[in-house]
């Protein structure tokens, strides 16, 4: 052996063929075992995710008001959405919200992770503090922020201390969506920072030491070691942050009910309202299918872009 280690005589092919339970080869048994391991999860997904998704897609071709029998309308629901200005508004709001939340999250989370990856006193506690917002229930987060954003609330109180006049965060069209975006970023960035942190800690220290010995500065080490090796993590963060932002629902529901004047009515809220307040489940299903299509498209584009980068 070229590595100097003694060779181990093995006769795996004989071992594999000696006993063939169920008449399967070793390789096929491995495959079967793998399949059996994922089967429960697959069953769960099929029953509780894929089946409802398929049902929703099917329902998007029917008129259904929850009480009467569904009636086939072909593409009628999609046409109705196309003609509905509120759907276009909701789509626009969703895109603004998604990009408004996800893009700052990518950078903030990375910055946070780099900070939290450094040696500092009380690092564990600081990490915990950043992670706490994620442990809070979404409904609690929404209610707390509603109080904070109140015209007489803490945010305005702090602004007043530095001479900034009262801002009616949730009742002005200019500020309502940015106010919700800020909450999304506040809640999401620490989560993705933890993901980045795991990615950072998986990079061997030797690389940095070797680079430092070669005279590489802080930026060069970040540019040529950290960033390339974090690419798979970045792909995950980018995809997940976009998907999570696209699905936001609780905050607009609890804090603004889509207002003022529809400026915070994101697509999931539009879907909920169309289905359960206006009793047009077919249209709601069509809007859901469009949202799903958009999420899929975003994901595929990101995979493609980042895979090209990885290659």
């Amino acid at each position, binding site marked *: 052996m070229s590595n100097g280690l003694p060779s181990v005589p093995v006769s795996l092919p004989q071992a594999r063929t000696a006993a063939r339970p169920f008449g399967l080869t070793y390789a096929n048994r491995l495959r079967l075992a793998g399949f059996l391991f994922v089967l429960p999860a697959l069953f769960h997904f099929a029953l509780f995710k894929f089946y409802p998704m398929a049902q929703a897609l099917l329902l998007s071709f029917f008129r259904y008001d*929850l*009480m009467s029998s569904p009636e086939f309308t072909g593409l009628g629901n999609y046409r109705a959405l196309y003609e509905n200005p509120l759907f276009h508004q909701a789509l626009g709001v969703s895109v603004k919200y998604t990009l408004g939340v996800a893009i700052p999250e990518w950078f903030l989370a990375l910055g946070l992770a780099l900070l939290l990856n450094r040696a500092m006193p009380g690092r564990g506690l600081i990490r915990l503090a950043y992670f706490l917002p994620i442990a809070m229930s979404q409904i609690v987060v929404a209610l707390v922020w509603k109080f904070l954003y109140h*015209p007489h609330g803490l945010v305005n109180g702090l602004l007043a201390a530095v001479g900034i006049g*009262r801002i*009616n965060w949730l*009742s002005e069209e200019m500020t309502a969506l940015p106010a919700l975006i800020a909450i999304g970023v506040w809640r999401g960035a620490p989560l993705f920072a933890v993901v980045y942190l795991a990615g950072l800690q998986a990079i061997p220290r030797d690389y940095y030491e070797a680079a430092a010995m070669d005279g590489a500065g802080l930026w060069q080490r970040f540019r040529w070691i950290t960033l390339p090796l974090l690419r798979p993590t970045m792909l995950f963060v980018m995809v997940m942050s976009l998907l999570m932002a696209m699905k936001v629902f609780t905050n607009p529901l609890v804090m603004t009910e889509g*207002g*003022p004047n529809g400026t915070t009515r994101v697509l999931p809220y539009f879907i909920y309202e169309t289905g359960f*307040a206006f009793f047009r489940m077919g249209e709601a299903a069509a809007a859901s299918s469009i949202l799903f299509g958009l999420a899929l498209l975003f994901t595929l584009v990101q995979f493609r872009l980042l895979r090209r980068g990885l290659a």
Partner: protein
Amino acid sequence: MWRIRLVLALLIAGLASGPGPAGAQATKLTWWEHANPPHNEYSKELVARYHRAQSKVAVSYEVFPMTPYFKKVTVAMSTKTGPDIFTVMDPLMPTFIEKKMMVPLDPRSLGHASIDDMKSKYLPGALDGYMAEGKLYALPIVSGTMSLYLNKRHFEEAGLDPDKDYPQTWDQLARIGKKLVKFEGDKMVREAFDFAMHSSSWTMSQFEPILRQFGGSTLDPTGRKCTVNSEAGVKAMRLRASFALEHKISDPTVSVATHPLPAEDLAQGRVSMFVTHPGSVAQFGPEKMKDLKVVSLPQVDPQKPVTHFYGFALAVNPDIPADRQKAAHGLMRFLIQNPKEWLEHTAYPLPVKNFLEIPGVRSHPYIDVFIQDMSTGRFVTRSPKFTEIADAMHRAMERVVLNRVDPKRSLDQACQEIDLALSKP
């Protein structure tokens, strides 16, 4: 082996001693209501009393937050998992009737000879909001209106006599409001008056009376065409917005942020006058009510008063067997037998004809004002598309009040949205 025998024996004994003969026959009813703490407490008390009064019907009472409550009812009914009895708000009646979510009530099971006999015992028109094609679909338990609450202390501080100087017209309200509003620099620190801005159903309750005072309506008589962008509609919307934009006695952004109890701004002294329902008397409590006074809703023309009338009512699930429907009627009859108690616990009057003659009722704070406003009240626009209409009107109001969009332009847009909704099956 003896252990297995023991367990089996215990199980059999347990099964045998489960519900006794009365329990075995007991009909089980489920009753769902929206959250309203004073109301819910009283409902619970009534259920306990009902259990003590008889043993044939067992009632399970459940409460859900207001916002998702009606959606929960709809989904439950569509999946045949709905309650036997549920509380419904009158604007949703056309939708629920169209979707066959309620059984027509039997007046005889409720203790009346016929629907006409029943109507004769209520305030004129009080049952109309719960009827369709001559059938009654829900039994009102509480009825409300929208009246003007004012802070007596603020009035006195401004040199006004709350017993004499209270506004009877919207113009008077604007004039008085200028004496009550407080600024620090250019910042309004106390509103003189405010409308609720937080929900579309409140928008309808507060806007439609003004619209009708100007002689307008949201829909045409057929209910198939939006007419709110008429001259009367524009006048009503202009008036609605004038307190914030023209008279500058109101900051509409404050009550947007005080959801879910915008009237709390009044109780906290952040606003001097506010339009709200009788239930606020119970929600505020006697201590806060000492500072407050209730007067009739201001009018465009006090000689032709138009106010708002609404209510919550009990409906029965049409999918349950006849015996449970009958038991549900019996429970409903029991629940409304003491209108005075309902008033004492919830501060809402029941719109029965002799309500004010019930001993003790007249001593309830401001009951005469509420009954007066109810007597000139009208239900909000009836349509199976009420929710969409209300949402469109809420947005129209927001555009005008918050963005200063021209009322006519905003109402034209609302009509486009409403007509689109009405055109859908």
